[in-house]
C-alpha cells in the first residue's frame, strides 16, 4: 500500500501487459490511441480528429466490480493517457472476431453491421462496432433513444447512420459472446492486478506522471506538486497535447481515486463525488432532477461522459462548460479539501473568471452538493443539438410567492468570459408578477445585459437573441406549473 510503482499494467489480447515508460522511452502521456497503433497488429483503431469529436478511435475498457461482474465502457482512445487504463482490460476491434477452425467468426455486432450494410468506406467502422459492442454489453433490446445515445459520439460521413442504428438494435439481443465465457478469467486476472492498489509515479526525462490510488495520497501529491496539472477524465487537458502539441510536464491523474466516485442522495440534496464520471451520474439520476438529466442528455457524447467528471467540468471553469450555469441555478455548493481539512463554497463564489477558480494550491474539489430545488430548468443552444459545445447555455430557477417572483436565478454560459447571472434582469423581475408582460419587459433588459463575442460558433447578435428567447421559453414552460389557478 505504501509503495509506489513506475509501471502500468493492463490486459490486452488476453495477456497482461506491463509498460515501463522510463525503460521503453515512452511518454507517460502517450494516448491509448497512439500506443495501440504503435503495435504491429492493432491498426484497426483509427484517428479521425484527435479531439474526441468523431469516435473513430473508440475502444472499450472493461472493469470488474466488487462481485466480479464486468462492465464495459466505450471511450475515446485519443483522449486518454496510457496510465489511465492501469488495472483494466483494454478491448480493441481486433479482439471481437474469433478464429474457429481456421475460419474467422465475426462477433454478432460485426455480423449485423455486415448484414445490414453498416459500413461504406469503413474508416469509422471499427469505432462504431466498439460503441455498439459496449451498448449490447450493457443493454438488452435497447430503445432507439438509448442506441442513438450510444452512437452520438461516432461520426460517419457515408451511410447516413440508418443501417448503423439498425445494426445496433439488431445485435443488442442479450446473447452471450466469447467475452461472457471469459469473464471469470478476466475478472480474476484484473483482481490480481488491483489487489494491492499502489500509487503510480512515473518520471521520464521531461515528464512526471502521478496516479494516486487514494484521496489521502492524492492530497499529499497535490500539496507537494503545486505545478502539476490535475486531470481525471483528461477530456479537456488531453487537447493541449493532441491539438496544440504542448508538452504536459507534470500530471496528477485522479482517475483511480475511488473516494471521489460516490453518489449520495438524501431528502434535501444530492452529493456527487467530483471524480464520478458523468455517465455514471446520468445513470444514478435515473431521470430524476430533470434539469440535470436534461443537461447530461446533450452533454458531449457517451464516450466522453464515461471519462469526464463534474469536478473536471467545474475545475476548468470554461465559460461554455455546460454544468456550471445549471449548478448556479441549483445554488450548488462545493466541498474543497486539502491535507488539513475541508471548506464549503458556493459555486458562484468559486468561479472567478475566464478559466479561473478559487481553488488554492494543495486543494482539490471533493464533492458537489446540489440542493433539490424545484423549478430549475436547463437550456442549451448549440449549432448541432448533440455533441456540440454550447453557443449559449442557461440554468434558470424561479420561486413564486403569491404569484410574485420571490426568488430567481438566471445564469448563462457563453455570454461572457465566465458563466454569469443576469443580475439586472433578475432584479427587474424580483417582486413582480410572473406573467408575459413582465417577462417581455425583462427580455429587453436581458438583451442588453451581456456583451457576448462573435466566434466560430455564432455571431454576438445571435447570442443576445437566443439568451432573451430562453427567458421566454422558461416562462412558457413554467407558467402552468407555477400557476395556482391550474
Amino acid at each position: 500500500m505504501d509503495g509506489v510503482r513506475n509501471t502500468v499494467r493492463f490486459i490486452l489480447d488476453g495477456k497482461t501487459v506491463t509498460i515501463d515508460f522510463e525503460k521503453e522511452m515512452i511518454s507517460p502521456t502517450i494516448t491509448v490511441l497512439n500506443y495501440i497503433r504503435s503495435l504491429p497488429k492493432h491498426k484497426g483503431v483509427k484517428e479521425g480528429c484527435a479531439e474526441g469529436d468523431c469516435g473513430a478511435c473508440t475502444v472499450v475498457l472493461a472493469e470488474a466490480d466488487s462481485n466480479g461482474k464486468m462492465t464495459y465502457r466505450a471511450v475515446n482512445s485519443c483522449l486518454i493517457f496510457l496510465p489511465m487504463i492501469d488495472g483494466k482490460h483494454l478491448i480493441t476491434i481486433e479482439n471481437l472476431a474469433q478464429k474457429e477452425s481456421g475460419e474467422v467468426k465475426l462477433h454478432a455486432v460485426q455480423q449485423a453491421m455486415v448484414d445490414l450494410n453498416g459500413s461504406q468506406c469503413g474508416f469509422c467502422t471499427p469505432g462504431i462496432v466498439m460503441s455498439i459492442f459496449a451498448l449490447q454489453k450493457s443493454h438488452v433490446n435497447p430503445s432507439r433513444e438509448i442506441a442513438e445515445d450510444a452512437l452520438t459520439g461516432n461520426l460517419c460521413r457515408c451511410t447516413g447512420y440508418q443501417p448503423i442504428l439498425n445494426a445496433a438494435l439488431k445485435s443488442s439481443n442479450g446473447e452471450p459472446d466469447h467475452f461472457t465465457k471469459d469473464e471469470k478469467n478476466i475478472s480474476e486476472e484484473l483482481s490480481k492486478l488491483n489487489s494491492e492498489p499502489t500509487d503510480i509515479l512515473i518520471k521520464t526525462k521531461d515528464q512526471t506522471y502521478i496516479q494516486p490510488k487514494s484521496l489521502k495520497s492524492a492530497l499529499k501529491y497535490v500539496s507537494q506538486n503545486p505545478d502539476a496539472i490535475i486531470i481525471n477524465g483528461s477530456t479537456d487537458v488531453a487537447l493541449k497535447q493532441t491539438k496544440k502539441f504542448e508538452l504536459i510536464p507534470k500530471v496528477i491523474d485522479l482517475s483511480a481515486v475511488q473516494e471521489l466516485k460516490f453518489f449520495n442522495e438524501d431528502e434535501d440534496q444530492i452529493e456527487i463525488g467530483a471524480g464520478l464520471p458523468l455517465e455514471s451520474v446520468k445513470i444514478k439520476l435515473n431521470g430524476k432532477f430533470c434539469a440535470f438529466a436534461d443537461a447530461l442528455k446533450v452533454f458531449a457524447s457517451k464516450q466522453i461522459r464515461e471519462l469526464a467528471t463534474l469536478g473536471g467540468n467545474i475545475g476548468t471553469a470554461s465559460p461554455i462548460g455546460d454544468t456550471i450555469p445549471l449548478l448556479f441555478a441549483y445554488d450548488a455548493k462545493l466541498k474543497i479539501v486539502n491535507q488539513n481539512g475541508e471548506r464549503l463554497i458556493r459555486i458562484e463564489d468559486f468561479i472567478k473568471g475566464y478559466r479561473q477558480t478559487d481553488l488554492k494550491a494543495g486543494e482539490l474539489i471533493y464533492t458537489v452538493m446540489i440542493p433539490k430545488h424545484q423549478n430549475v430548468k436547463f437550456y442549451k443552444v448549440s449549432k448541432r443539438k448533440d455533441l456540440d459545445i454550447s453557443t449559449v447555455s442557461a440554468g434558470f430557477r424561479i420561486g413564486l410567492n403569491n404569484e410574485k417572483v420571490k426568488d430567481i436565478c438566471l445564469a448563462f454560459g457563453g455570454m461572457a468570459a465566465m458563466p454569469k447571472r443576469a443580475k439586472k434582469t433578475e432584479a427587474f423581475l424580483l417582486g413582480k408578477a410572473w406573467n408575459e408582460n413582465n417577462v417581455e419587459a425583462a427580455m429587453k433588459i436581458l438583451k442588453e445585459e451581456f456583451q457576448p463575442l462573435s466566434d466560430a460558433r455564432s455571431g454576438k447578435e445571435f447570442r443576445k437573441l437566443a439568451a432573451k428567447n430562453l427567458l421566454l421559453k422558461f416562462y412558457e414552460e413554467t407558467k402552468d406549473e407555477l400557476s395556482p389557478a391550474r
Partner: protein
Amino acid sequence: MRRQKMNFLPHDSAHKHVTGQSVYVNDMQASSEMLEGHVVYSKQAHAKIVSINISEALKVNGVDTILLAKDIPGLNQMGPVVHDEICLADKEVTFIGQAIALIAAKTKKAAREAEKKLKIDYELLDAILDLDTAIEKENRLAPPRKIECGDLEKGFSESDKILEGSLKTGGQEHWYLETQSCLAVPGEDREMMAYSSTQHPSETQAIVAEVLGIQKNEVEVEVRRMGGAFGGKETQANHVAAWSSLLANATGKPVKICLNRDEDQIMTGKRHRTLNYYKVGFDRNGKIHALDVDLNLDAGSSNDLTMAITERAMFHIDNAYYIPNLKVVGNTWKTNLPSNTAFRGFGGPQGMAVIENIIDRIARHLGKDPLEIRKLNFYNEEKENITHYGQKVENNRLQALYKQLTKTSDYSERRSQINQFNQFNRFTKRGIALTPVKFGISFTTSFLNQAGALVNIYKDGTVQVNHGGTEMGQGLYLKILQVAASELGIDPKFIKVTSTNTSKVPNTSATAASSGSDLNGMAVQNAIDKLKSRLSEVAAKVAFNGGSKPENIRFEKDIVFDANNPENNIRFPDLINLAYLNQTSLSATGYYKTPDIHYDKDKGRGKPFHYFAFGMAVTEVEVDTLTGYAKVLRTDILHDVGKSINERIDIGQIEGGFVQGMGWVTTEDLKYDANGNLLNHSPDTYKIPTIQDIPKDFRVEILKNAPNPATIKQSKAVGEPPFMLALSVWLAIKDAISAVGDHQSEPEFSLPATNEVILEAVEKIREGMERG
C-alpha cells in the same frame, strides 16, 4: 452452399471494415526507414514572402530534409486543369494553408519541432476574403459563361408577376473520415511508387511526374480504398502525393504524409460558396415564363475544377422544371482562400437551391402550396421537354415519382395536420416540403467519359479484374465484381477485383461525376466479351470437338455449354486450362466511351448528358422558434436508379447522400476571421450530422420497373443525385419559419439554415407582425 442473391451482396470489404483489417494509407509501413512528412503552410492569406530561413530547423534532432520551392526538380505546379497552382510557394502566398516548405523527419514530433524553428518573413498584401469584395474589385477567375434559350424579354413581358431576389449558399467541408494521405516509396533509377488516397490515380501520377521532372511511365500510383472522398480527393489528393514524392525523392526513403484533421480542414478546398441574383417572371397560376440568373461562385485562389463546377451549376438551374425563356450566367471569382473543389453534386446543389427557392417564393407570393407550383412546372413527357441547353429530357420519371411519392408520403393529409398543429402551437412550428431532383449524368467535359479495364484469367480458372475506378466506400468494386460474375457466369468467389493501379489500367478519368459504375462496368464488360469470344472458340472447337458453334456457347453457373445442346458442357476452370494448352490469350483489356454526347461551350448548346437520374423527397420538420433548433421528423424518398445492380449499395448511397446534404443545408457552417483564418477547422466547431440528426422516420425506396436503356445492366448512377434531395429539409424549415407569420410574409432565408439563420428570420417576421 446456396448462392447469395447477387444484387443483395454486402460490400466486398464489409468483413474487413468491421474487423479493422481494411488497410488505409496511414496503416501502411513501407520499411523501418520510413519518414514522416510534414507540410509547413502559409499563415497569411495574401503576402509576399520576404525570406525563409531553415538553418535552425535543420538542426532539430530527427530531421532528415527540408525542401523549399527551389528544391523542386521538375515543375513547381500542381494545377489539375489549368497550371495555376504552385506546389510550394516561394515569392508570394495567396491563401492560409498554402504549402511553403516540406519537412521529412523520423517522427512527427521532430517535424513539428523543426517547423517552430523555421522562420518565414512575410510582407502583407491586401486580401480578398469574400465574394462581395471579389465582385466589387472585379477579381474574376475567368470570363463569365452563359447559357440562354428562348426570348427573355418576351418571357418577362408575357408574365403576370415578376420577383427578384438573391440567395447565398455556403461552402461545405468534405469531412471524409480519412484525411488526405499518401505514402511515396522511391524505386530504382527515378521510379516513384505512390500509395495515394486519391479519386484520380492517373492525374496523381501525372502531377507526381511533373513535380519530379520525370516521365509518367516512371510513376506508379496505387489505391486500394479511400476512407471517404466525396470529391475532396478528385484533385486535391494530388497535393499530398506530390509533396510526399518530393520528399521521398530527396531523401531516398519512403515518406508518408497524412494530414491531421485541422491541417486538412485548413489547407484543402471546400464546396464553392455562391451568391446568386435572380429575376423570375410567371403567370397567375405560377407557371414560369422567364428566368434570369446570375450565379457567382467563390473559386478560392486558383482554378482547380471551378469552371466545370460552374457549368454544372448552370446546367442545373432548371432542376426539374421547363423554363421556356431562360438566361443563366456563371461568374467565377478569385479570393484568398484555398481553391474550392469538387464535392458531391459538383455545382448541381447550388444551382438547384436557387431554383427551388424561387419556386418556393412564387408559391408564397401566390398563396399556394409550393407543391402545386412544382407540379405545374415539371418537364413534360411529350412536350415542354427541352432543357435550356437544348437536350431533350428523355425517359422522364418526374410524373411517376410525384404520383407515387405524394401518395405514399400522405402529403396532403399531413399538410393539413401541420396547418392545424401550427395554429395551436405558438413557439413550435412545423413545415413540410417536397423537392425533386433531375441530375445529368456524364462528365460535362465530354472526352473524360471513357474508361479502361484489364481482365486476367489464371490457369486455375480464377479471375482478376482491374479497372480505372477507385473505391471510396460507394461499393464500386462490388458492382464491378457483380458485373464480372454475371458476364462470366461464375461465382463471385472466383473473382478478385484488385487495387486500382496506373500500371494496370492507364489514362483513366477520375472516379467522379457518379460515373464509376457506368464507365468502368462497361469497360469490364467489354474486356470479358473479348475473353468470352476466345473461350467460345476453344469450347466449340476443342472441348466439344467442333460439335457446337461458338455463337451458341453460354457461360452460366460455373459451366460453359452449348445453348442448343446442353450435353456439350465443360466446367469453367477446365475450359480455362484447355484454352491455355491451346495457346489462347487469357488476358484482355476493355474500353468504353459514352456514345453520342457533345457540348459546345461557346454556344451553350448540346447533349452533355448520357441520361438523367431522378429522385424526389418529402420532408417534415419541427422548428423551435425560440432557439432556432430544427428537428427532422420524417423523410420519404423515392429515387430512380434504373434497374439496381445492388439495392443495398444503392439505398446506402441514397441515405448517405441525403444525410450529407442535410448537413450542408443545416449545421455545416464555415466562418472566417478578418484575416482569412478558417475558424471551424475541426469537428469541435464544424458540425456534420450525427446519428441524432437523421430523420426520426426515414423511408427510402427505389423506383421500381424503371430500367435505363443503354447503360451497364440497365442501371443508373446514384452517387451524387440523392445529395440534393436534402433541399426538402431546407425548404421544410423555411415553411415552418413562414408559419410564424401565418405564411403572410417571405422569410429572409439563406443556406445553410443554421439556428442563427432561423432565429434571425423568425425575429424579422415577429418584428414585422408587431409593426403590423
